[in-house]
């Protein structure tokens, strides 16, 4: 059996070689299909990695009380007209909620920073309570975080994100230096460890952190983000969310018939909405793949019928010399599979190059061995399927008539 396989493979390759243009045109549909499927899986894998990496910034057991929901289709004006979140609710929440382990409050807005002649523009200033490290992934690399008393008294101290530190202090330790945020002087007390980007876009390293009381003292007005983070046990997060909703409703004095005028956000919202996006990407990819493989497969079947017709006499000779039906059928099936598998291989090479480019410029997206294997198996499968009818036709030819065919 082995010798037939190699013989058939040899025949297939020499046939394809002698009809180069035809083979390339025929294989193109498969190339496109395989690019679609392998690139799609690689992208989804890459985006998955990115997503999970980003989700670390939002603890699983964290509930965020905010004015704006992260996702949803509520009327923009209704949301716009909600009262802003009163950050001093944080202490009340801590007191009333049974699930809350830590309650931290934060505000944010952007401003320009400077040190001597160096400046950093549009830096996100994050005003947080001193318990913020307990609800986030911030990690102090040099120096220290601020204390509760520094927060209470509104001390003008700041922690720099790693990028900000590099910009303002290209050489040297920033700790204990004085920088300007707008017109106010701050003493640098620490530098944060590098954190990376959220969803590949928003860098967490271009922020600075100051005490919330200091923020309130300096920046008046309604702008910027306000959020209360409530950390609860991860496995009770759904119960805790209901309780928290009740607590905030009571604190805001809402009547039973009134709707919530605040949002409780959590990681899950991201997950659900991400699943939707992923399904949409995957579904589109599958449709493109299925269509191009179907069209490609029809092309292959068509060209194989032509090939069987053209080589009727050859089939006659082979049969006269003792080829059985299954040997002839095998010959044409292998030929079809060689076309599609080569198309698959080319598609795989192209999508590997594309994913390398994506990894270089956008986010990590590596072609996995499983995806590569699936792409080749899928393309060979299309060949098997498309080649079946032509191969059977060739195998069933009557040797006498085939030998007489001109």
């Amino acid at each position, binding site marked *: 059996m082995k*010798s037939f396989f190699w013989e058939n493979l040899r025949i297939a390759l020499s046939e394809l070689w*002698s009809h180069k243009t035809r083979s390339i045109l025929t294989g193109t549909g498969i190339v496109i299909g395989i690019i679609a499927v392998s690139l799609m899986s690689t992208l989804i894998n890459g985006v998955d990695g990115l997503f999970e990496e980003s989700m670390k910034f939002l603890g699983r057991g964290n509930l965020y009380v905010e004015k704006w929901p992260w996702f949803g289709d509520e009327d923009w004006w209704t949301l716009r007209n909600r009262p802003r979140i009163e950050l001093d609710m944080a202490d009340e929440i801590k007191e009333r909620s049974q699930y809350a382990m830590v309650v931290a409050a934060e505000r944010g807005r952007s401003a320009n920073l400077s040190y001597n002649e160096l400046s950093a523009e549009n830096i996100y200033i994050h005003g947080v309570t001193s318990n913020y490290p307990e609800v986030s992934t911030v990690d102090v690399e040099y120096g220290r975080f601020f204390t509760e008393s520094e927060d209470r008294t509104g001390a003008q101290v700041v922690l720099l994100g790693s990028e900000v530190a590099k910009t303002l202090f290209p050489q040297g330790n920033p700790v204990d230096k004085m920088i300007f945020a707008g017109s106010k002087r701050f003493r640098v007390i620490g530098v944060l460890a590098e954190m990376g980007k959220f969803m590949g876009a928003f860098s967490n390293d271009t922020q600075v952190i100051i005490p919330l009381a200091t923020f309130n003292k300096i920046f008046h007005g309604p702008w910027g983000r306000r959020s209360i983070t409530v950390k609860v046990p991860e496995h009770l997060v759904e119960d805790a969310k209901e309780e928290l909703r009740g607590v905030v409703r009571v604190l805001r004095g809402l009547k039973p018939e009134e709707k919530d005028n605040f949002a409780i956000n959590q990681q899950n919202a991201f997950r659900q909405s991400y699943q939707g996006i992923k399904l949409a990407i995957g579904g589109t990819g599958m449709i493109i793949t299925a269509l191009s493989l179907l069209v490609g497969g029809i092309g292959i079947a068509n060209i194989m019928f032509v090939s069987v017709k053209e080589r009727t006499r050859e089939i006659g000779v082979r049969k006269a*010399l*003792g080829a059985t039906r299954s040997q002839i059928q095998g010959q044409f099936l292998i030929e079809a599979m060689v076309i599609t598998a080569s198309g698959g291989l080319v598609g795989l090479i192209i999508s590997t190059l594309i994913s390398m480019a994506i990894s270089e410029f956008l986010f990590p997206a590596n072609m996995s061995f499983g995806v590569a294997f699936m792409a080749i198996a899928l393309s060979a499968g299309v060949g098997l399927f498309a080649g079946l009818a032509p191969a059977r036709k060739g195998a069933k030819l009557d040797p006498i008539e085939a*030998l007489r065919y001109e």
Partner: protein
Amino acid sequence: MSLIQVKDLYKIYQMGNTEVRALDGVSVSIEQNEYVSIMGPSGSGKSTLMNLLGCLDTPTSGEFFMDGTNVATMGDDELAHIRNKKIGFVFQTFNLLPKSTSLRNVELPLIYNGEIKAHERRDMAIRALTRVNLGDRVSHKPNELSGGQRQRVAVARALVNNPAIILADEPTGNLDSKTGEEIMTLFDELHKQGNTIILVTHEEHIAAHASRVVRLLDGKIAVDEATNRGKKVTQ
């Protein structure tokens, strides 16, 4: 038992309402190392008989024993095996695979044999090509060979499996008379070396190479006699 034993062989085609008796009760025996030519005008059943003897077709009725096995009732794949192991075909139009070298063409029956290793196949094919004096043309493709050389490659291909019979269908039909004679000399030599040869032709001087001639007419054997050459041998 004879190498080929055919008894009351019928091949009947139904063409619409009319029945065409391509073979109408043919009985013939061919012995080991016989050299037989089959002659007859077109429509005499000559081709049909050759297709049946070549196991390319099955009869409507009758008995056909080849080397002791009943071939008349075999299925497609069994017939393919018989063709592969017992019969060597030489065609009028050579029927070589145009894109393959002489060596590859001659190897083909061995590949379908399925039991012969690659290096043995190569050796056997080179030996067969050497027997037809083409030992120096193994890597040539058919379009690089003359008509006579192509037919010799085809003869080498017919020989390579060491078949029980060599079945040649108008082997000189596409060759000029000089080259044709060369090919016939080659068949004469093969016959002397002990091969059984069946030659289908409509040319008397080609048929004269054989020692026996079977003449068909209207699907029946009209004459079955020794040729002059055959008579000389028996005298």
